[in-house]
């Protein structure tokens, strides 16, 4: 008799989602100037969760003005006082983390296991870490008394809505900037709940402004003449557009863009752990991760053994209700994203790669894509070059370390890479040659507020996290 797990859903009663939300400007929730709204849905059920005000250019202007007004006092506060605000925020996030985890799972579609064990702890930790920097900036290596830039315009993606907010807001506030942040149109809710956390923490009005909206609002924010700093996480195409927009201005720019991370497995790797790392690398958050290990480079001599193990492991993945505590794979964030993943996977097949998925029943409503493996992939295949941003792994082989490095680097991206071998000197030798901003060895997808994150090449520039992450928000 098989050991079937009964449903173990996390209660959604813990989160109270209002039927509608406004923009958060100058400490108040307000309607959009043109009264426009949009709906946000739960990707696992297509249920409408709430109706949210849609920011336009006029609202952007209002928010930037509020942030500019707040900047004078906020930046003049002693660092130790700013620190205490951020510590308060960190603590409130910890207190409300279960509620926020459920909310994030509802709005984003990712499993509760991830929001509960990864997203939310990292969010709180990020605020906690940067809180501590607020009164220690003179020790950060950017001069004795580094100054903030002013108003930061920040545009974040839908894959880690609250975590990306934390990565943007925590360092900005710690250094004395004020912010206008635009969450993604498919995942606005956690940012709006964050506005409420700012209220609970007693944060002065205008220091944080949240503008739910679409790309037009993001474009207006980036282009606004009174914004001093632009921080964007999202696609490389939009990143390039933003780089053009800010050209010729004095705006400081950081971009965290796409990736096509290589996960390199040598023949002396700890195989069972490598399999876990590969699974984590590409199926964490349904592969909707810019630093995903979406290209598996396996040494040809162990390819069969590794793929057998990998397939066996994939067969145990549990796909379904994201609120179920035993779900490993949740929903794809939106119909658009699902269409893109589907199209690229079909192209992979059309170009001759061999497609494999475990037997897997997909729910009838919502946006779903089964974990998928492509073998017989070469550098020439589209699925080896384009970022799929979904649960699709392309498997390539190599014969020697040189070849592994050459293939790993043969991409316009340069965000992440993984190395699996028991030989320490090989790890370091390969890491030295990789053109990627984050290299994990014998692990993958590890994040920590103390550790800088960011890309080489078309994966963007600037670093978020760690001491390095302060630089983006200081006038240095």
């Amino acid at each position, binding site marked *: 008799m098989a050991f079937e797990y009964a449903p173990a859903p996390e209660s959604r009663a813990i989160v109270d989602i209002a039927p509608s939300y406004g923009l958060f400007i100058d400490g108040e929730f307000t309607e959009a100037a043109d009264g426009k709204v949009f709906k946000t849905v739960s990707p696992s059920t297509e249920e409408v969760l709430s109706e949210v005000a849609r920011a336009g250019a006029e609202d952007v202007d209002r928010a930037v003005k509020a942030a500019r007004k707040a900047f004078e006092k906020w930046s003049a506060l002693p660092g130790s006082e700013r620190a205490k605000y951020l*510590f308060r925020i960190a603590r409130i996030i910890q207190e409300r983390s279960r509620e926020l985890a459920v909310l994030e799972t509802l709005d984003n579609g990712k499993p509760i296991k991830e929001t509960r064990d990864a997203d939310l702890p990292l969010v709180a930790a990020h605020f906690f870490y940067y809180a501590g920097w607020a009164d220690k900036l003179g020790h950060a290596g950017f001069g004795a008394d580094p100054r903030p830039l002013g108003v930061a315009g920040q545009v974040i993606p839908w894959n880690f809505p609250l975590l990306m907010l934390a990565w943007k807001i925590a360092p900005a506030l710690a250094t004395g900037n004020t912010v206008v942040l635009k969450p993604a149109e498919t995942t606005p809710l956690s940012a709006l709940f964050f506005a409420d956390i700012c209220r609970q923490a007693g944060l002065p009005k205008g220091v944080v402004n949240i503008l739910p909206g679409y790309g037009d609002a993001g474009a207006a924010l980036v282009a606004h003449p009174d914004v001093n700093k632009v921080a964007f996480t999202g696609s490389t195409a939009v990143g390039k557009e933003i780089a053009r927009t800010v050209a010729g201005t004095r705006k400081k720019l950081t971009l965290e863009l796409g990736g096509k991370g290589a996960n390199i497995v040598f023949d002396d790797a700890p195989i069972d752990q490598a399999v876990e790392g590969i699974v984590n690398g590409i199926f964490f958050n349904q592969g909707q991760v810019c630093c995903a290990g979406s290209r598996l480079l396996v040494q040809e001599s162990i390819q069969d053994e590794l793929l057998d193990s990998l397939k066996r492991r994939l067969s145990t993945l549990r796909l379904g209700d994201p609120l179920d505590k035993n779900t490993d794979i949740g929903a794809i964030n939106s119909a658009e994203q699902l269409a893109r993943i589907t199209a690229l996977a079909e192209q992979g097949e059309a170009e001759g790669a061999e497609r494999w998925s475990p037997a897997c029943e997909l729910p009838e409503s919502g946006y779903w894509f089964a974990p998928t493996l492509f073998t017989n992939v070469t550098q020439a295949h589209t699925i080896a070059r384009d970022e799929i941003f979904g649960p699709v792994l392309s498997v390539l082989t190599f014969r020697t370390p040189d070849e592994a490095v050459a293939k790993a680097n043969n991409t316009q991206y340069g965000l992440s890479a993984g190395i699996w071998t028991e030989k320490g000197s090989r790890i370091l030798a390969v890491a030295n040659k990789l053109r990627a901003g984050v290299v994990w060895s014998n692990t993958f997808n590890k994040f920590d507020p*103390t550790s800088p994150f960011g890309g080489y090449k078309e994966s963007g520039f600037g670093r978020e996290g760690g*001491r390095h992450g302060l630089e983006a928000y200081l006038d240095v």
Partner: protein
Amino acid sequence: MSDRLSVFKTYKLYVGGKFPRSESGRVYEVTDAKGNWLANAPLSSRKDARDAVVAARKAFGGWSGATAYNRGQVLYRVAEMLEGRKEQFVREVAEAEGLSKAKAAAVVDATIDRWVWYAGWTDKIAQVIGGANPVAGPYFNLSSPEPTGVVAVLAPQESSFLGLVSVVAPVIATGNTAVVIASEKAPLPALSLGEVLATSDVPGGVVNVLSGRTAEIAAPLAAHQDVNAIDLAGADEALAKELEIAAADNLKRVLRPQAVDYFETPGIERMTAFLETKTVWHPTGSLGASGSSY
């Protein structure tokens, strides 16, 4: 209500997470600035000092092995707990140091903020004083700070609370454990701090507080072979020299007494004084047997 007889507090030591009386069974009289009796404080013996070192050593593995993030959370929790007992400390500091209520309140506020300041340092000090070293060879080379071990701390004699926290917090922020000798004439805020630490997720033994004659307790600590460092903040010149000589026996790290304005934002010296630097070498090698051709 005003004629109600109040309940006095029995002040006790704080050792290994527990509140023992002195092994000596003795106490000494603590008075306010005007000479009025406040309480009897335990008069610690060398055996109390020995027990405190054992407790501190036992706690060292867990505390130094905790993540820096975890230590930061714990230190911040101390600030949260203190904030809730502010009134008590304002009274104790006012009595101990002969300050007005307003001045004592300013002292306590600064003390709480000092905990917050050090709570933020736990996961940053390594980033400020450690780092990669570009050695001329195929080696990865990284220097990181590590706590030195058990630190004996002679708390400042005058600043019984702000001064105390200003010397204790940097010692434990980086993962050391501490045996603290409270201000001799004003030990009560230190003994009460023990009660706060005990309810702040600080593991027992990380901070141990002894009251009594500073010179009497400090001598066995300075000579103790299982103490790694000593902060002489609360010693006068003659005692400091004597203790430094005793400390040389096992080459303790010694922080000499110096004039400090405890209201000033500190630097990182009180942390680095009790940190070792460990440098790890590891070969990077080349990609293939014939050297890198890539």
